[in-house]
């Protein structure tokens, strides 16, 4: 049975290269150190299960002579073997503890801090992301996405606006809780360009299951361009979509360059370039956006955004406007 288990584990993991949240293969310095520790401890665990399983099986089915009668016993040899077993176990335990502490020490802080830092605030059930800069005019806010340059350690300051959430990008590193009244600090660094997925990993209420975010890793040049792009305010527009937006949405949402400055919901600047809607729940397409605006409570029951019951034309206009904000 344990052999089947080990086999199953291997088979299951073999198919995990394209699993977005799997962390036993990793593309970051933190993630890969944890991954090797993980593989090592998994190997020890599987080994222990096999050894104990074999010992158990042999002890049950080995040949014996004699009746089922109770008789005198001498356990000196048995105790000695128990001692051997405990000693071997202790060696593996101590070794694993030492390996753990070495790993912890090496991933607790980035090798050379880069000065790039991001403030991520968890809210019920989305992520507010603020890019820091020594130049105040270069700071900006976005939501539900992180964009970072490849090979650069990024400090992530973690806060919460309401309950405890947890920030986790499995392929790039371990998780860290976001606790109100505290600021926790973690750091991310990616070895390769690509898209990664993050997930809230502390039960935070009704929509804990649907609180995801994306992490996009770009080359340094692309990252600088992205940052500059994010700073651009929305161009002036007299579209009916913007007008509707100001009336129906601006109380909670903000768009840089317009008069909309609501902070209760995600910042929607450059919304058209975002990957997903509603914190990783739906891919960002216009039909999905229309669906979302009309049916928030059906798609994400309990979410703080009410169903607005706008006219179909109004919804369509707002969606067009938002998708145009690249």
């Amino acid at each position, binding site marked *: 049975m344990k052999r089947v288990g080990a086999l199953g584990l291997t088979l299951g993991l073999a198919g995990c290269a394209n699993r977005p949240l799997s962390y036993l293969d990793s593309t970051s310095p933190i993630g890969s150190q944890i991954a090797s520790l993980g593989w090592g401890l998994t190997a020890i665990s599987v080994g222990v299960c096999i050894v104990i399983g074999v010992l158990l099986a042999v002890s049950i089915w080995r040949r014996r002579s004699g009746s089922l009668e109770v008789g005198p016993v001498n356990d000196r040899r048995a105790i000695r073997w128990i001692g051997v077993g405990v000693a071997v176990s202790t060696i593996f335990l101590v070794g694993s503890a030492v390996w753990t502490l070495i790993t912890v020490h090496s991933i607790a802080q980035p090798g050379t801090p880069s000065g790039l830092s991001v403030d991520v605030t968890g809210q019920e059930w989305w992520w507010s992301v603020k890019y820091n800069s020594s130049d105040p005019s270069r700071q900006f806010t976005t939501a539900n996405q992180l964009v970072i340059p490849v090979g650069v350690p990024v400090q992530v300051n973690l806060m919460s606006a309401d309950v405890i959430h947890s920030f986790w990008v499995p392929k790039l590193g371990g998780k860290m809780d976001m606790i109100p*009244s505290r600021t926790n600090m973690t750091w991310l660094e990616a070895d390769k360009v690509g898209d990664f997925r993050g997930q809230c990993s502390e039960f935070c209420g009704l929509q804990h299951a649907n609180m995801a975010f994306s992490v996009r890793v770009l080359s340094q040049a692309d990252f600088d361009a992205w940052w500059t792009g994010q700073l651009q305010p929305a161009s002036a527009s007299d579209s009916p979509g913007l007008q509707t937006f100001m009336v129906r949405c601006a109380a909670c949402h903000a768009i840089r360059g317009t008069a909309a400055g609501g902070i209760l919901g995600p910042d929607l600047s450059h919304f058209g370039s975002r990957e997903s809607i509603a914190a990783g729940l739906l891919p960002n397409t216009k039909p999905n956006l229309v669906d979302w605006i009309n049916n928030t409570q059906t798609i994400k029951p309990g979410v703080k955004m009410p169903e607005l019951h706008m006219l179909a034309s109004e919804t369509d206009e707002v969606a067009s406007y938002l998708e145009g904000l690249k």
Partner: protein
Amino acid sequence: MVAHADTVDPPLRRRLLETWETAPGLYGWLATVDHKTIGIRYLCTAFCFLLVGGAEALIMRVQLAQPNLKVLSPDAYNQLFSMHGTTMMFLYALPILSGFSNYLWPLMLGSRDMAFPRLNALSYWVFLFAGIFLYVSFPIGQAPNGGWFAYVPNTNLKYDPGINMDVFSLGLVFLGISTVVGSANFIVTLLRCRAPGMSVNRLPIMVWGTFTASAANLLAVPAVSLACIMLWLDRRCGTHFFDVAGGGQPLLWQHLFWMFGHPWVYALVLPAMGIVSDALPVFCRRPLVGYTLVAISTVATMILGFGVWVHHMFATGLPVMSLSFFSAASFVIAVPSAIGVFCWIATIWTGKPQFKTPFLFFAGFVMLFVIGGVSGFMTASVALDWQLTDSYFIVAHLHYVLLGINVFPVVGGVHFWFPKMTGRMMSERLGKWTFWTMLIGFNVAFFPMHITGLMGMPRRVYTYDADMGVGWLNLISTIGAFVFAVGVVLFLFNVWRSLRAGAPAGDNPWDAPTLEWSTTSPPPVYNFATIPQVASRYPLWEERLKESDERSIVGDAVPDGMVLDQGKETIGVSPLDAVPTVVLKMPGDSLLPLLLTIGMAALFFGMLALSLWLIVLGGICEIVTLAAWLTPKPHEAEERVELYE
């Protein structure tokens, strides 16, 4: 020399029966203090809660069988998973072990009853009423919904309006009273109410396990009771223990909860490990290998268990230095567990296994213990835990340890002691079907969760995305869960059928060595007509083990034995060497435990409803009942009696 109760001197037998038998009818049913009745009540009630918790799990598994199913709303799911955890952790896992211990301890220890029979009845009634208190919230859709761990601020009033978490916090304080009272009873019973000669190195390991767990509970339960009172006060009285707006600290809840929670999970498994340590040797036809090692490792595990609680908080951002300490301690705690595993395997290896149903469950337990243990070993590593925690890997780990180390020994233990409790044997054929169904179902359900966890599926989620790639594994888990449920149904069917038509068991169908097997099946209400005098760990195997020339005096036809028939009496002994030091008078039937419980219920419902008059009424009931309970009898002088007539 074991003799049948039929050989008891009839006038003595009549006297003992008259003294010890519970009154008939409804009064007796409500007022009994007989530890065997109370033990069976605990077993049945805890099992009912197991079934309810299991049903909750099956519904959850249906919702999770495929991505994005809409069988349950998020709110319904949150209530279900919270009640599943609360029910299993509080209303099943400890009470079922209390049931075994309550029934068996006096029989195993050679005593006539527990130290405090009325307190025993009280601990059962409080358990029952607290369980009902927690469950009345379900029909009104207000069941606890913040998880069994109830992290703040999510469970503060602002984010969890409604009475769900008031039911939870008050219910746990209510239940905690049962746990503490029961623990005190076990501790004092162990220290004082044993047969002469039952020194500490002759105690069954199950007694060691329950004693250790009880001592731990005495010290750990106040932490969660305090945390729950603070939660209730934050919610209903505006205090700021956890509320950040007033300077409160969310992590205070986690520290208090886990300072309780970690010792608690060891309390849930150590007595069950004791069951295996006592019953497995019977089916290996030899004593346990390394008795002293196992006893010491039981105590060591519990003590270490008080020093690892932060491993539930590895991702909270605590200083790396303290996390490292707790990680190291979490590795160290595996050492005593390893001792136990090797002792059990050695017992089987050097013994002659009998493939009866209990043996199958105990052998299966060893393997599940090791699998659960190694997944725990992996989470002990703080760096790896930063990936594993809050994922389905933990769900796999906790179910392997809880079902593997509690449920499997419990089911094996029921098969083992059912003959003693009822006088009938359970069906071996059904038993084997039960074992294999449960074993296969369990592993099919929970092994894949290791993989889903490693693939990043978070826990406590009501649904998941299709592109996470875990849909097929979740489907397998769901199927396994239902197979396991079939096993449980088979077990229940076996119990029901055996109660009506099982083969007669006789006194000692398994040819087991401990004192409970020297009585009839079921035992007489007074347990032993003559108090045994114990000379070794395995009184009924002494002739064959030939460890020494001393022989225990066991059985009812002993001339000049200690009969203690001047009223309800048993012998009290010194804690270590079990030298008789006092004759203890036991109370008879009493309604006071039930009345005290009703008063408590009034207090707690009053707090739930914020009703002052109900609280006052409950308080008055408590004071009056306690006064009646504790009133010294008139004209009571210090008595001294001769032990033998």
